[in-house]
């Protein structure tokens, strides 16, 4: 059976560089880390070309390597800045709830039909900014769960936390991200529209 075409590694940068970079920066939020991991991916690919079975396309195979590099990076970040108690407890000053647990100021109406948001490059930029404002562990947990679609068991292993703690982390990440998007994107576009 004929194998799908594979290219000489000297062509990889031009052929797959942008594609891998886009994949990396969506998850890492930082240009220079994304560049480094793309470089490491190519290097690993060159060293390990025999593992390319030809059952998938070359780009899928390279993305598979990159995925592992990204998980390793998250693992390293979790080791260097482990979660502290404060990450898992409520922070009263930033809580949107009053003493009885009701909304002190509830979510605002985002209006219209924002279903096409994913096409807007500016929205992606704002999402990246909001995610960068979270602690790395919160942002990475959100990334693995919502961008990567990983299941919670896998994420617990990467971040080295229990499942119960992961739920708390994801809850906080979603709450903070929602609030940031509301303040920086939805309220602005509501004002623009009025």
């Amino acid at each position: 059976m004929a194998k799908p075409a594979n290219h000489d590694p000297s062509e990889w940068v031009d052929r797959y560089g942008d594609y891998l970079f886009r994949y990396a920066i969506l998850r890492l939020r930082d240009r220079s880390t994304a560049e480094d991991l793309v470089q490491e991916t190519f290097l690993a690919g060159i060293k390990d070309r025999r593992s390319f079975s030809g059952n998938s396309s070359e780009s899928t195979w390279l993305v598979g390597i990159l995925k592992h590099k990204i998980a390793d990076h998250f693992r390293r970040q979790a080791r260097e800045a482990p979660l502290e108690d404060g990450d898992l407890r409520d922070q009263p000053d930033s809580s949107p709830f009053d003493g009885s647990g009701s909304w002190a100021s509830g979510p605002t109406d985002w209006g219209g039909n924002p279903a096409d948001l994913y096409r807007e490059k500016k929205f992606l930029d704002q999402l990246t900014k909001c995610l960068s404002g979270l602690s790395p562990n919160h942002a990475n947990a959100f990334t693995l769960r919502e961008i990567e679609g990983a299941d919670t068991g896998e994420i617990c292993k990467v971040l080295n936390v229990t499942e119960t703690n992961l739920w708390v982390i994801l809850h906080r990440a979603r709450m903070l991200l929602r609030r940031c998007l509301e303040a920086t994107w939805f309220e602005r576009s509501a004002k623009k529209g009025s």
Partner: protein
Amino acid sequence: MLSCKNVTQLISESMDTSLPIGKRIGVRVHLLMCKFCSRYERQLLLIRETVRRIAATEEKPGEPPGETLSEEAKERIRKFLRNP
């Protein structure tokens, strides 16, 4: 009776695991009565949906220009790969 604070936690949890039936009913009943919590749930689901679509769009090779490696970065990587 669940508070809004409890319900927001459970909404998030229900996005990662299936809640036991008692909690599930508690949340649904609360949402029927609470405008803010229903809005909260809709917005979290919108964020999830949008993020997944972004990921799916970005992952098609040759899809929208979006972010690209700078020429310097490309040159640096090419050089590195010639002499790792």
